[in-house]
């Protein structure tokens, strides 16, 4: 009866947990290092779970990256680039990571990669989805959301025709970004670490139950889909002339309507949002995005439905 609504998915056997893709986002760095020494809590029967520090040199220096953002170079050009003396450290590292956990888009690639990040924005514990048709990942997010309820666990879909991220986790068959904030760069907060740890626990539980043969019926979750990035107002020299308005600060995932304040200039002038539809800002005032010319990201709320799934081997 149910089988006509259920897709058979390959079991998920090889899982990696990446920390330190950005070297100054410390929850993932310290969790992964802890699990490398003492990994009992991330082991599940029938699963290989590998904790891994992706950018060890940036971690050592407690900086986001050495030469370029590791989380943007997993595209065919960079992964295929010839190794030369002057190649950026992160590109060389990306090729090594792709060699161990990929190759990207191949059968040999890891089944699932969790990539652990922090943000200075008030995003709570956010799950990042790369592909709106990945039934397995949507089912997992649904499971994690229910397990964490009533605590909020927003899902952020970064699928976009023009914005290509080429993330570190994208080499896996099922890439999962975990973004927890607010936490300053170079700081470790116990509450934020705990939130991240719970997300991983529930994610691994889901994989375990799935592998054991449990059928997950079709589900629908609410997600935030990326629309566009919004830059700060700037003068002709490119310097920022206004900062995030106090009434937008810390309001990630809250509705923003036409006429709502978004920026405040040094002279006290308010700049309002102009747009026809309600949007849901996120990554509001993220430290690392000043250089990327990004004050916040506009999203829209949509519903996403996943087919029912069941492991094909059971």
């Amino acid at each position, binding site marked *: 009866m149910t089988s006509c609504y259920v897709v058979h998915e390959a079991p998920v056997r090889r899982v990696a947990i990446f920390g330190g893709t950005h070297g100054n986002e410390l929850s993932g760095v310290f969790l992964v290092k802890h699990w490398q020494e003492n990994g009992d809590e991330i082991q599940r029967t029938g699963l290989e779970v590998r904790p891994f520090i992706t950018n060890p040199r940036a971690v050592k220096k407690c900086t986001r990256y050495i030469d370029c953002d590791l989380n943007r170079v997993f595209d065919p050009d960079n992964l295929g680039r010839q190794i030369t003396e002057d190649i950026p450290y992160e590109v060389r590292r990306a090729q090594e990571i792709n060699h161990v956990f990929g190759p990207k888009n191949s059968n040999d690639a890891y089944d699932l990669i969790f990539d652990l990040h922090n943000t200075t924005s008030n995003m709570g514990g956010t799950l990042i989805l790369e592909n709106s048709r990945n039934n397995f990942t949507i089912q997992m997010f649904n499971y994690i959301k229910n397990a964490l309820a009533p605590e909020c666990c927003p899902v952020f879909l970064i699928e976009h025709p023009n914005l290509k991220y080429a993330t570190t986790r994208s080499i896996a068959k099922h890439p999962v970004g975990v973004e927890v904030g607010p936490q300053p760069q*170079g700081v*470790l907060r116990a509450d934020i670490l705990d939130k991240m740890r719970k997300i991983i626990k529930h994610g691994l539980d889901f994989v375990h139950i799935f592998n054991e043969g449990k059928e997950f019926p079709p589900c629908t979750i609410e997600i935030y889909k990326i629309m566009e990035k919004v830059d700060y107002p700037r003068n002709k020299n490119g310097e920022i002339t206004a900062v995030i308005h106090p009434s937008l*600060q810390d309001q990630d995932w809250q509705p923003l309507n036409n006429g709502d304040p978004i920026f405040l200039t040094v002279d006290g002038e308010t700049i309002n949002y102009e747009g026809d539809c309600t949007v849901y800002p996120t990554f509001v005032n993220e430290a690392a995005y000043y250089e990327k010319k990004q004050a916040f990201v506009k999203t829209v709320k949509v519903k996403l439905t996943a087919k029912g799934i069941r492991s094909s081997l059971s």
Partner: protein
Amino acid sequence: LCSSPSNRSRPLSCVAVCGGTHGNEMSGIYLAKHWLRDPMELQRSSFAVTPFLGNPRAIEKCVRYVGQDLNRTFTTEFLSSTEAEDEPYEVVLAREINQTYGPKGSAQAFDFMFDLHNTTASMGTCLIVDSEESLLPMHMCHYIQMHYTRSPCPIYLYKLPGEETYSINSVAKAGLALELGPQPQQVVRADLFSQMRDIIACALDFIELFNKGTVFPAFEIEAYKITGRMDYPCYPDGEISAMVHPKLQDKDFLPLNPRDPIFQTFSGEEILYEGNTTIYPAFINEAAYYEKKVAFVKMEKHMFSIPGLQRD
């Protein structure tokens, strides 16, 4: 009975405001850049105010410092060192700043310097003075506490007994540092930006009144005095083995009693405070102190009697 006569002190004519002593603490950097373009709001009738950027190269790269912490470089040892090829950028810079706004301890030095900082700790709008013996800064703090009412302004006395002053504002005859948080490094928050701006305006008003002859009577004031620092627990390889306990996080300036939890290990064990007396921590979980393995600063709370003050 009559009150004891006020101390007399010369009027202030040269005042400097420094932003970006640490290049990733953005409130002061944005304010100083704004004032360099448009100094109007700094103007008062009885004295001149010079805004400047403390560490331009660190600001450019948006890092705390390039070679070493500039705000620890204003000691006799560094200021009197001879130029060398391989010396850190900040040592060169400290000598230049000392030439412009000092020389430290000399009659030509600027009368007053403000230094603008941010912290990732929940320190609110904290006022930092070297010690309670600095009469004019203590009066300024008192004035700020009475007239700037948006947020409480705890006073932090940073100099350990017998320690030489090392901060950038020690180049001037007197100084005050503002430490506002929590704010992540590299981030500008509008709320802290305007709080810092308002406190500076209030402090400049105080100088104006002082210069014009207002008599400031004696008062009693509460302040926190540093007694030492608490290091993170570490593994043998030097890596931090525990985090600030959630019950201590964001509790700057609140009492910490013996046997209160201060750290939590990654396996969930609690580490308790082993001291014998109540202390008041600050700079709890400050990002810049990880490299020094400092988890927080330990302080005692005291009442101080500050004598009256008026212009000479």
